[in-house]
Every structure is written in structure tokens, then in C-alpha cells.
């Protein structure tokens, strides 16, 4: 890897692990990355702007969630790497130029509900989850998000939702836990909220 913006790096590059890394290795790499890119870390504050730091922190969280979930990692791998002799290799240069958002949305086509038209809002998230047959309780345990908040998200109880900065993170984790593209879910949900507020 070299001189790629954070948006163009694969989740493996973001966490500095190999594509064959075990969960344990990913956990360790995540802990290191989190420690390194925290706001008051000596090693980064004079190199990165606040905006860049936020971008990196978010990318680290996202990479961690996707790579530690077996299902989402598998679909991510399938869309990012061609399998040559059983070993995943990085795709050709043409593919590298595209941003991660584009690549990620590709990876979730198989799993996503109504991939094109409809916005991801509370009820769509609920439908996807139910289609997968996962209890909200399980998601809550997996993502460590309070079940009340998950319920609020699904029920679209806007007045019960936490502050925007937390909500974004929760939506991301929730989306990842049910194999959806976190970027799209956050974007859609916020747009949905925006429209709902106007009404």
C-alpha cells in the first residue's frame, strides 16, 4: 500500500493486517489503531487535522466491525479480492481507483433488501433483520448497543434517539451486524429523519 487516502484503503490496510488475519490478530490491530488514533495520542496530533482524525477513527471502527463479523467479512472479501489458488489477492489497479463507498455497496448487493430505490429507514432495517431471523436482543449483545436504542431506531421514535454523533455510530454498527452497507444506512436514515422532521 502506498499513498492511498483513507477512503481508498481496504479494511485490511486500515487495520494494517493481512487478508488472512485471524480474529485475534484483528482485535490486537484494532486496539493498537484505536490507541494510536485517539485524539490525545502523541504520535498523531501534529500530523493529522481534526477532520482527518475523525475520518480515520470512523474507518477503523468500520473496518473492525466488518472484519470481525464472519458474514460481513466474507461478503467484503468476495467483492474485494479475486480468489487465486485459494489465496485472496488484491483486485486489479482499475478497481483500486474507486472509492470504498462504491466498492462496499457492491459487496452488499446479495444481502441487501431493495438495494436501489427505497431509503433505509427504521422499518426497512427491521424487515431485513427479521428476514435474517435475528432477535434484536442478539444484535444488542453483539453490538453492545442498548436494546432501547435499537428499538427506537427500528420504531423510528425520533424523539427517543440519542445525539447525532452517537446515533451515527449506532446505525453503522447496527447496519454491519445485519450485513448492510453502513455508509448507505447512515446516509439514508439521516435523510429519512430530515424529511420526517420537516413534516
Amino acid at each position, binding site marked *: 500500500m502506498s499513498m492511498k487516502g483513507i477512503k481508498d484503503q481496504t479494511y485490511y490496510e486500515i487495520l494494517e493486517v493481512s487478508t488472512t488475519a485471524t480474529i485475534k490478530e484483528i482485535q490486537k490491530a484494532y486496539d*493498537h489503531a484505536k490507541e494510536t488514533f485517539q485524539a490525545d495520542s502523541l504520535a498523531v496530533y501534529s500530523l493529522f487535522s481534526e477532520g482527518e482524525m475523525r475520518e480515520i477513527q470512523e474507518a477503523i471502527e468500520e473496518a473492525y466491525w466488518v472484519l470481525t463479523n464472519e458474514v460481513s467479512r466474507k461478503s467484503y472479501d468476495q467483492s474485494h479480492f479475486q480468489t487465486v489458488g485459494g489465496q485472496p489477492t488484491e483486485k486489479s489497479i482499475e478497481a483500486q481507483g474507486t472509492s470504498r463507498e462504491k466498492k462496499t455497496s457492491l459487496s452488499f448487493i446479495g444481502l441487501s433488501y431493495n438495494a436501489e430505490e427505497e431509503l433505509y429507514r427504521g422499518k426497512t432495517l427491521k424487515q431485513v433483520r427479521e428476514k435474517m431471523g435475528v432477535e434484536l436482543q442478539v444484535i444488542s449483545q453483539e453490538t453492545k448497543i442498548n436494546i432501547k436504542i435499537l428499538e427506537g431506531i427500528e420504531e423510528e421514535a425520533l424523539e427517543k434517539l440519542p445525539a447525532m454523533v452517537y446515533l451515527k455510530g449506532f446505525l453503522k454498527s447496527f447496519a454491519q451486524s445485519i450485513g448492510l452497507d453502513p455508509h448507505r444506512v447512515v446516509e439514508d436514515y439521516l435523510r429519512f429523519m430530515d424529511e420526517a422532521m420537516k413534516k
Partner: protein
Amino acid sequence: MIWTIGGGKGGSGKSFITANIGICLSKLGVRVILIDADLGGANLHTFLGIPPPNLSLSDFIKKRVSSLPDVLIPTAIPNLQLLTGAQDLLNAVDAKSVQKRKLVRSIQSLQSDTILVDLGGGNSLSVLDFFLMSDGGILVVTPEPTSIENTYRFLKSAFYRRLKQSVSTASVKAMINGAMDQKNELGIQNPHDLIKAVRQINEEEANRMIEEAKTFHPNLILNQVRSKKDIEIGFSIRSACLKYFGIQLHYLGYVVYDQDVSHSIRKRRPLVLENSRSKAAQCVMEIASKLANHR
């Protein structure tokens, strides 16, 4: 093999580390020449416990001495010689790159296995060039904000200078110059922005710069560490450099904070000779053995 030791700021321990690594290597049977190019305060001799030398590189440049080996100063340690006065040349504003390259060549032709150049805390173009021309650049950093800030400043300058040397188009060179100024009009904030901007005007040069960045592997020594957390900072610096510059920094090792270091400096006796069993000396030896295996 020529190693240059630079970056950071005065007081991070570059001369201490240069002198003691040099001694360790010579004890391993490696022929070593130490070169003092510290502009601020050339005192590598003091770390070796010898008086200020009369002969220097200037005598060779001003042709008072006909060959470079004649200005080498022997030390009490077998296999170890000292060359001072390189700062005069690095300091010379009119030192053309031809001259600099000539100096590097004559240094390379010295009969030695390993040459360690103490660049001091300077940030001038000549220092940067010397750092970039060597086989391996070593940054000595202490786990303090000021030291790390200055090291990044040095690394940024060296990095952009190296990129600039790799391209030939005037417009791209100008763009790199612009990027070195944080408040540039192009809105280039970091190396990624720079590559993007260059790619828009010249795809080939952008690719050349990416290739050049891949070959830039500076080394890092963390000095005066006091805790396990301090040691981790070295790994964090490595990660930060990978994310920011896209370069692979090599974390050579760390030296623990140790009272024995200041005792040895006061006595004007090299630590690894005076107190080879001290913790700091053990750390230095470990780093030296890594360098020895690198040849």
C-alpha cells in the same frame, strides 16, 4: 553502508546514540567511521572521550591535506575512527548538489564497513539531502510532543524533497513546493491531496511519486523511554507515517531512560564501555546488532 542520524531536535540523544552504536559495532569487528556533521554543536569527540580534534574535513576541502583518510582521527577503540568538520560543508549555502554528491562519494570511498553520520537537529536542505543520499536514515525521537513534532517536520521536508527529486516536470515540482506550505492555495493538506492534484495534470509523474514513496524507508529509534506505553509510541509513529505518508517506517528499537547515561556523559566515558551492563547500554547493543546484520 552509510547511516545518517538526524531529525527531531537538539537533546534527543543523537550524538550519544551515534557514538555508542559506533563503539558497539566496532567491538563486533565492524570497521566504523563516525562523522560529526552536527551544525549546532559538534561534540561527538566528547562522547568518545577524546579532546577537540585539530584536523577536520575543512582541511581536506581547502586542500591543506591531500586525501580524505588523512583527516580521520583515530580513537582509543580499535576499528573506530572519527571525522569532524562535515558541518562546514553542510552549512555552506553555496554547496551545490554536485559538490555534495562529490563529498558523499569521497565518504563512500573511505575504507570502512559502516559509516555513521551525526546530522544533529538541523533541517537545512543540505542536511535533508545528506539524509536522503545515505543508505539508511535514522530518526532519534524522545516520547515527548516537541520531539515528535520536530521529527514529523523533518520527515515531511525530507519526504517532499525526495518526491521533488523524483519528478522532472517543472509544474509538478512547483506543485510539490506548494504542498510544503500548509496554507497553500491549492488546498493540499497532505501527501494524498498532493498525489491527487498531480494526477490531474500529469498521470505519469503521479505514478513516479508513488513508486518513489515506496522506496523511502526511514528508521526510528525511540530514546529515553520510561514505560511500556512509551515503547508503544514507536509503533504508533510507524502507523501514523503509514497512514499519512504511505511510507514504511522501520522501528529499529528503543533506549530506556537511565541515570547511568548522564553519569557516563559527565565522566566523558562512552556508556557501552563504562557501564555495559546498564539497561540503556543493553538497548544500544541490541540496536547495533540489528544494524550489523543489515549490511
